[in-house]
Structure formats: structure tokens, C-alpha cells
């Protein structure tokens, strides 16, 4: 079972970056940041599984472009923390999504292989998490402050997405 729980390093344990330190996803700095994170403790098997998960999300992030094909913006330490946190909170049996930057500057993760079962999550600059789900005509969307856990409505949307995705396989 992949319980949605607090991240293993805690929501605020990622060290604050100095103002001059920003991570540029395209140059692989986000991955370096993850490596630094992993050296902070001796990972357990579960933590290693999670770190692989984070690596998957970061790969998606490194491949991300702006929605119009332009160059991705520089990734701040705050965004890196949010991505790490989100990658850990999403159940490991949910595939790594496609990722891109929205015109508003958010990082968007799309699970949309099935047009009748879509899920999108947007990590916003203001430390907010926004989400939208479409399931055979049923629409759910909202946003919340992104703290130590995912919003309840998003957790439910992820469960429904998984349920339908598993049924289709």
C-alpha cells in the first residue's frame, strides 16, 4: 500500500537556498539538488523507492518546456522543494506524468493518456497547489496552500484516477 504520508525528510527540512542559488532544471541542477538531499541521511529501502520516484519527476521536469515551446524558466529553490514534496506525496504506483510550465509560470503535471480520465496538478509560485480532474464528464478542480499533505479533494481525485486507469488496463 502506498499511503499518502508526510515526506520522509519533513516538509520544511530542505535547506533554504541563498538568494544567489537557483536551480535550472534544463542544466540538471534539480537532479544535483536531489543528490545533495540524499546525502543528508542514510536512505531506507522505502526512502530509496521514493528517491527513484523523485528522480522520475525530476527527469520529467528537465524535459519540460514552456507550454508554447519556449525555454523553461529558472527553477527556484522553493519550486524544487515543492516538486520534491509533491513527488513523495503522490503514490508510487501512479506513473510519472508529463510536465510543462504554464503561461502563468506554474509547473504542471498532466496525467492525460486517457481523455476520459484526466488529472492535472499545478505547483504555483505562491506555494499553492492547484488541481483539475476530468472523469467521463465529471469535473473537479480547486487549489489550496501546499503544506505537508495533499488536499483531501486531490487525494480523492488521485484515487479515482488510479481506479479508472487500472480498470482500463
Amino acid at each position, binding site marked *: 500500500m502506498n499511503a499518502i504520508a508526510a515526506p520522509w525528510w519533513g516538509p520544511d527540512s530542505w535547506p533554504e537556498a541563498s538568494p544567489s542559488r537557483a536551480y535550472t532544471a534544463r542544466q540538471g541542477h534539480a537532479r544535483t539538488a536531489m543528490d545533495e538531499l540524499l546525502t543528508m541521511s542514510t536512505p531506507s529501502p522505502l526512502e530509496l523507492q521514493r528517491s527513484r520516484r523523485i528522480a522520475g519527476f525530476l527527469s520529467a521536469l528537465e524535459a519540460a518546456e514552456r*507550454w*508554447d*515551446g519556449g525555454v523553461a524558466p529558472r527553477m527556484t529553490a522553493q519550486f524544487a522543494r515543492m516538486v520534491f514534496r509533491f513527488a513523495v506525496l503522490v503514490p508510487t504506483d501512479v506513473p510519472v506524468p*508529463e510536465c*510543462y510550465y*504554464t*503561461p*502563468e509560470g*506554474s509547473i*504542471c503535471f*498532466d496525467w*492525460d*493518456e486517457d*481523455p*476520459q480520465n*484526466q488529472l*492535472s496538478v*499545478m505547483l*504555483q509560485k505562491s506555494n499553492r497547489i*492547484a*488541481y*483539475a*480532474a*476530468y472523469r467521463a*464528464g465529471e*469535473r*473537479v*478542480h*480547486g*487549489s489550496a496552500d501546499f503544506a505537508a499533505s495533499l488536499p483531501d479533494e486531490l487525494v480523492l481525485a488521485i484515487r479515482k484516477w488510479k481506479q479508472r486507469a487500472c480498470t482500463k488496463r
Partner: protein
Amino acid sequence: MSWCWPSESGSSEPARSVERSAEFVERSFEVVAIGLNERSKFSGEPPKAKKKYFRPRDVDGVKELSTFSVDGLSDEARWTLLDAQLTKAPIPARSELRKEAFAAAELQQHPDWEPERHVNIIGWPASEDAIDSAAQVLYAHQSCVRRSESPAGEQR
């Protein structure tokens, strides 16, 4: 080249100058299309334009999704129309949306005919999650056509 003003029945009338009018602005077209000028912009089998291409652009503070009316146009004419508007022609695919999709997404068509047959999709909500929700509806309702699979594409 001038594109015909499509009739209500779907057939093309002889080309004529189209001017803005109440009738023009309020008109709702049966089918509009988005040109996909790179293979990375669509995927899957059957093909689908990626959802992000149904998100609007911010134009002077107004959110708009740029489309073209293809009412009354043959398959070949649809490719010609979209090729003329996009870089990297010939484009490899197009995504079409029927007017029912906009009703479901609670969006409206706004034809400005600049250039001819250009239709903006407007009425986007303010919040990013609601915008994405509307884009998901369009994504679910799209009909994506690969050029190689269409009659005009086969002729090339």
C-alpha cells in the same frame, strides 16, 4: 487567397468580403481547428493533441485560444488554411473541436476574422485550476487528424 464564408448548411458560399457585424460576432461555428505544426504536439493512437495546447494565451489581459473555423471546407482546404497560418508547413496534424465542446467547457467562440476564418475562444475563468478544467473538457472532446491519414495527406 480568400476563404469563403461558410453557410449555415456547411457548404461554402462564393468568397466575399467579411466585415464585423453583430451577426458575425455572435455566430457560432460548427467546427474549429487548431493546427499542430510539430509531431511533439500530439501523441497516442488514435492521435490526440496534448492538453496544454488547449490552454489560452493571455492577449492584453484577455485569455484567448486561437482557432480557425473550418466549416464548409474540404479536408484538403483545411490543411491549406492551417498551413498558411503556421510556421513549419506542411503541418503534420490538426485538432478539431465541435461547438458542443465549448458549451461543455462553458466557453464561447469569438470570431474576429483577423486573419480570415480566425476564431478566438474566450470566456476563460480566472483561476488556473478552472482554466485547466476547461482545457481538459476541450481535450476530451477533440478529434485529432494526422495528415498522413486524411484524404489530402494521402495525395501528397
